């Protein structure tokens, strides 16, 4: 019997998170697996969290730390929006995340990708890794699954994609990471933000493309056995 099954470990979102800019907005994407040790505590989590009407954040790392940081920033942004009299900019949201991440760097373990649209700068993506560095990027990847995507993005990323191209890229990338990262899995969620508003999409595990060595899912072995022929298989 295996003795080291840490079923009471801290909830961590192993995760794959992605943010990509396109002509007129941003697409945010993430998987949906939250694990405690090796157990999948939630197979359908929502890691793309709303900060304001026009700014969302992808969360990775410790589930608790990322939730509390996004809760605080949502609260601050709400007050900021009232005082400012107009929607907050993506840059302000990203900097608030940065302040919390940087000033509590010894206690927090969370990597975040902030993405949104505002009327001054259009679509923007900001990466805020562990330690609280703020980096504005045309696209950002994060979480344990992102290790498998650096080569993919080096090859597949292009400036000036359309909304649909950008979303397809994100879904393909998260799906590739899920295939290889044990800490990522479940469904692919995307959030598209542009001048017109916000669209949430949901790509369940069985609708994702199949990659190398993956097979078409079946209802049961019995269907396969009955379909081929009544004779028994050989080793």
């Amino acid at each position, binding site marked *: 019997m295996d003795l080291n099954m840490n079923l009471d470990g801290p909830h961590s979102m192993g995760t794959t998170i992605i943010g990509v800019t396109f002509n007129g907005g941003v697409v945010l994407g993430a998987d949906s697996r939250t694990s405690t040790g090796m157990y999948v505590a939630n197979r359908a989590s929502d890691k793309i969290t709303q900060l304001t009407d026009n700014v969302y954040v992808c969360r990775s790392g410790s589930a608790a730390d990322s939730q509390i940081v996004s809760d605080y920033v949502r609260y601050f942004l709400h007050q900021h929006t009232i005082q400012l009299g107009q929607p907050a900019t993506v840059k302000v949201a990203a900097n608030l995340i940065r302040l919390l991440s940087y000033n509590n760097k010894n206690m927090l373990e969370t990597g975040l990708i902030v993405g949104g649209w505002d009327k001054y700068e259009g679509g923007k993506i900001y990466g805020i890794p562990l330690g609280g560095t703020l980096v504005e990027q045309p696209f950002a990847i994060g979480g344990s699954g992102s290790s498998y995507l650096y080569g993919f993005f080096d090859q597949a990323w292009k400036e000036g994609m359309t909304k649909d191209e950008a979303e397809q890229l994100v879904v393909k990338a998260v799906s590739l990471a899920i295939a290889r990262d*044990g800490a990522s899995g479940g469904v692919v969620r995307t959030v598209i933000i542009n001048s017109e508003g916000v669209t949430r999409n949901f790509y369940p595990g069985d609708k994702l493309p199949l990659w190398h060595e993956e097979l078409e*899912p079946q209802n049961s072995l019995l269907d396969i056995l009955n379909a081929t022929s009544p004779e028994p298989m050989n080793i």
Partner: protein
Amino acid sequence: MNFMASKQPENSLLGPEADSQRTLYPYVTGTSVVALKYKDGILMAADMGGSYGSTLRYKSVERMKPIGKHSLLGASGEISDFQEILRYLDELILYDNMWDDGNSLGPKEVHNYLTRVMYNRRNKFNPLWNSLVLGGVKNGQKYLGTVSMIGVNFEDNHVATGFGNHLARPILREEWHQNLSFEDGVRLLEKCMRVLLYRDRSAVNKLQIAKITEEGVTISQPYSLKTYWDFSAFANPAQGAVGSW
């Protein structure tokens, strides 16, 4: 004045030189194996994943192998140690066949041999990092047993390794009964494997189901299971509590 370090004989397991020989931790691992007794024999299921830490590195690893005429061995844990065990068993079966006396090692004997191997390695602090499931039928008698890397061994009507113990065995305790048909057994194993696929991080969606009866061993072709995500709660889980999961 200095004290000379005491000299160990070359093959001693004490001292720093011996550490390179001990298995400290596994590298390429397989996850759960689940097995049950049914009307005609034993059914066993295992996925084909070989994980390298948290990376799902190999997806076509066969973790169940026939042993002799009467047994089937499934393994989880370090794959290289499983391959070594298969080499030991090859030798065991070879010697058994060389007697040419019409007798052959049955599952009970193979299980006992494996138990001795695993326990003796554990006593030398150099375990074979596996949890094994050994099933078979001989002379109409069904046998299903398990051995862990520290030598814990027992038989039962249904067994599992790793996560299977926590997720599959409760299902089997509820739904297993004597004289399951082949179809019911397969469906029950698939139910267990699907839960493992949802909830075990190291599970991979490509599995094989093996059956062993008096006639012999059959291991199915690799196939994948359908998974279900079409629940309204999954579409928008944070609706009532923005910022949660």
